[in-house]
C-alpha cells in the first residue's frame, strides 16, 4: 500500500537534511565505516610519500620476503617485506598516491567526457548523436592494450599518460548509459514544464536531466574504480604502463604474483586494499543514492532502520 505513503498529507514534514549529512551518514553504519576507510586512503594518498617515502624505498636484501605479523623488524614490517626487503606497509601507504591519482584521474576524466558526450548524443539531433555513438563503437572495439602500447610507446609511460589511456577506454560506458537515461528522462513531464517556461536546452540538460541520472552514473563510477585499478595492474603485468620504481597497488599485486606460491603476502595485501577501497566506494555510493534523493532521504533521517 505505498499509495498511502504518497497520499497522506504530512502532519509536520521534516525539513530536508534536518540532521545534516553527517547525521544521515551515521544512520548507515556500513557507509560510515566506508567513509572512514576512504578518508584514511585519501590521507595516505596526500601525505604518504612525505611521511614514509624513504622507508618505502629503503632496500634491505636481508629482509627479503620477510614474513608478516612479526615486530622483530619493527612496526613497519608488520605486513612483511617485499622481494627487495622493502617493508610492505609503508609501500602500500605510499602507493596510495599514484593508485588514487590514476584511478580517480581516469574515472573522473572518462566520467566527465563520457557523460557530456552522452548528454549531447541524448538530447541533440539525429546526425550528431549518430556520430557520437559510432565513435563510442570504435573506442569500444579498439583493444585497450593496443591503445596502451601506442600511447605509452609514443609518449613515455607516466602516471599522466596512463590516465589518458585508461580514461579513453572507459568513456563508452558512461557515454552509452548517459544517452540511454537521457532519452528516457527527457520525456518526463517536468522537463516539458521547464520547456514551457522557456528554459534553455543547456538549463534543461544540466538543471533538470543531469541530477536525475547522476546517481546511476556515480554507481557505475565506483565500480569502475576497481576496474581501472585492476586494468592498471594488468598493464604493468604486461610490461606496459606504470613501472618501477613508481609504485601502485596494481603494480604491487602483479609483481607479487610470481611469489604467490612462496610469499603470498606480497600480492595479498595490495590486493586486499584494492578490494576494500572498491567496496567502501560502492557502499558509500549506495548511501549517496539515498541521501541525494529527497524522496528517499527520510530513510536515513528516521534513523536508518529502513535504510
Amino acid at each position, binding site marked *: 500500500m505505498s499509495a498511502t505513503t504518497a497520499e497522506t498529507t504530512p502532519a509536520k514534514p521534516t525539513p530536508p537534511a534536518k540532521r545534516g549529512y553527517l547525521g544521515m551518514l551515521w544512520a548507515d553504519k556500513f557507509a560510515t565505516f566506508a567513509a572512514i576507510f576512504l578518508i584514511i586512503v585519501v590521507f595516505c594518498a596526500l601525505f604518504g610519500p612525505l611521511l614514509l617515502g624513504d622507508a618505502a*624505498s629503503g*632496500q634491505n*636484501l636481508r629482509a*627479503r620476503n620477510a614474513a608478516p605479523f612479526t615486530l622483530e623488524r619493527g612496526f613497519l614490517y608488520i605486513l612483511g617485506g617485499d*622481494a*627487495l626487503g622493502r617493508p610492505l606497509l609503508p609501500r602500500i601507504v605510499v602507493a596510495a598516491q599514484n593508485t588514487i591519482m590514476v584511478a580517480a584521474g581516469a574515472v573522473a576524466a572518462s566520467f566527465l567526457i563520457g557523460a557530456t558526450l552522452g548528454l549531447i548524443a541524448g538530447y541533440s539531433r539525429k546526425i550528431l548523436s549518430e556520430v557520437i555513438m559510432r565513435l563510442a563503437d570504435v573506442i569500444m572495439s579498439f583493444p585497450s592494450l593496443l591503445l596502451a*602500447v601506442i600511447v605509452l*610507446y609514443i609518449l*613515455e*609511460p607516466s602516471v599522466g599518460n596512463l590516465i589518458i589511456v585508461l580514461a579513453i577506454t572507459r568513456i563508452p560506458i558512461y557515454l552509452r548509459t548517459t544517452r540511454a537515461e537521457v532519452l528516457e528522462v527527457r520525456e518526463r513531464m517536468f522537463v516539458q514544464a521547464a520547456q514551457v517556461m522557456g528554459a534553455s536546452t543547456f538549463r534543461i540538460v544540466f538543471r533538470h536531466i543531469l541530477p536525475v541520472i547522476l546517481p546511476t552514473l556515480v554507481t557505475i563510477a565506483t565500480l569502475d574504480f576497481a576496474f581501472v585499478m585492476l586494468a592498471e595492474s594488468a598493464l604493468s603485468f*604486461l*610490461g*606496459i604502463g606504470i*613501472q*618501477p*620504481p613508481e609504485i601502485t597497488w596494481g603494480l604491487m599485486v602483479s*609483481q607479487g604474483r*610470481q*611469489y*604467490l*606460491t*612462496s610469499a603470498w603476502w606480497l600480492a595479498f595485501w595490495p590486493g586486499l586494499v584494492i578490494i576494500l577501497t572498491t567496496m567502501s566506494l560502492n557502499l558509500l555510493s549506495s548511501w549517496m543514492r539515498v541521501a541525494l534523493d529527497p524522496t528517499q532521504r527520510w530513510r536515513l533521517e528516521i534513523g536508518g532502520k529502513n535504510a
Partner: protein
Amino acid sequence: MKPRYALAGLLLATTTAGAALAQDSEVTIVLGEELDLVEPCMSTRSNIGRVILQNISETLTELDVRGDGGVQPRLAESWEETEDGTWRFHLREGVTFSDGSSFDAEDVKHSFERTQSDQNTCEISRYYEGIDMQFEVVDDLTLDITADPAQPIMPLLMTLLTIVPSETPMEFVREPVGTGPYVLSAWNPGQDIRLELRDDYWGETPEVTAATYVFRSDEAVRAAMVETGEADIAPSISVIEADDEALDHAYPNSETTYLRLDHSVAPMDDARVREALNLAIDREAFLGTILPEGAEIATAIVPPTTIGWNPDIEPWAFDPERATELLEEAEADGVPVDTQIRLIGRTGNFPGATEVYEAIAAMLTDVGFNIDLQMVEVAEHEQYYSKPFVTDGPVIVGAQHDNSRGDPVFSMFFKYDSEGRQSGISDEKVDDLIDRATAASGDERTALWSELFAYLHDEVIADGLLFHMVGFARVAEDIDFTPTIATNSQLQLAEIGLN
C-alpha cells in the same frame, strides 16, 4: 602418476598429459614460449631450436656440451682443412630423410643456399654474415667448403647449419623434413606440438618414442604441471618455483646479463665514471637472494665454458667509497656526473629482472649517480639496445646475451666492434683484436680472446658486466635428464632416459 592425482586420473586419460603418463616411453615437455614456426633454418632461435634441433633436423657437426670434447661428428663423419680457407667434409653414409630420400652433399649445399635466399628470412644466415662461402660437391658423400675470409672455426660454424633435402623450397615450410630421429606428427598452434620416433633413423634408437610439447607462459603453472604429473620436463622455471630438491636441477643457461654503456655520451665517456659504476654494484648481494645461488659474477660477456674465457680477470669489488671518490674526481674535472642517466631494463627479461634493476638503480644512486630507472617492453627495449642509439642524454641499457656456441666470435663483433650493432665502444685495439682472433685458430685464437676480455674489462671498462645466469629445470622422478648449458637452445630427446 601421483596417487592423490588418481581422482582426476580417469579424466586425464584423455588428455595429452594423461597419454604421456599412460605409456612411459612418451614424455611431455612444457615450454614457456610458443613456436611461431617449425622451420629448420630458424633453429638458431632458441624456442624453435629447443624442439627441432637434432630431433628433427640435424647438423654436420655438433658441439659437445656435456663433456669438453669440442666439436663432434654428426652427419659428417670427419673433416679436415685441405688448404687455407677450404674445408673438406666426409659425410655419413646410409642416412635418409624422414621423407625417405637419402642424404648427400647436394642437400648440404642446398641447405646453405636456402639460408642465403632473399625469399625467406632465415636466421641462421646471420652467423655467416660477411663471409663468402662456396660449397663444392666433390661426390655424394664429400663436400668442400671454401670461405673468404678463411674460417678456422668452420666445423663449429657447421653446428648451426640444419640440413634439409635439396627439394625443400626457399619459402618457410610447415612440415620440416630432416634426418633426425623424430618427425613432426602433430602441430596444433597454441596448444601442442608432437614429435614421434621414426623407425629408419641412422643412429641408435632413443628411449623416448614420442614427445609432446605444450606451452605455458606462467612459471608457476609450468612448475605445477610437472608436480601434478601433467608434464615430465619443464626446462625452465623461475628460481622462486624451484623449491623441490628432488625434481629441480640448476644449470648455467649460457645467458649473461650486463649493463651496456654508450661511451660516446657524457658522463659515460669518462673511464672513472664507468669504473665508479662497476664499483658501486654489490654483485655478491644478489646471489642467493634475488638471483639463485648458482649464478656467477661475470667478467666477460660469454660463459666460462667458452674458449678464451679469462680466469685471471678479477671481478670488480664492491667499494662504494671509492666509487664516490671517483665520481667526485670526475666532477672536479668538469665531467657532468650529475646529469640524469636513464637505466633501461626489460620487463620479464629474466626471472626477477625488475627487482635486479631496482636494486642496481638504488646502489648507483647511493654512490651519487643520478639514475632514472625505466622498465620497458621488448620492442621499446630494442630501440635503446641497438644502433642507432638514442642520443638525448646518457643511457644505460640492461641486457642479457646468450652464447652457448663455445666460441666468442658469435658475440664479440656485435657487442664490441666499432661496427657492432649493440656496441657502445669504438676502440681500434678492440677492433683489431676481434679481427685477429676471428681469423686465428688453436691456442693463438684462445690467447687473443683472453687478451681481449682482459682489455675490455680492465682497461676500456667497456660495460657493467653482471652475472652468468643459471636456469632451473624441473624433471619428474621417473625421467632421467640433466640439463646442460645448451638446454636453452636445444633439447635432444635422445638424451632423455626413462627409469
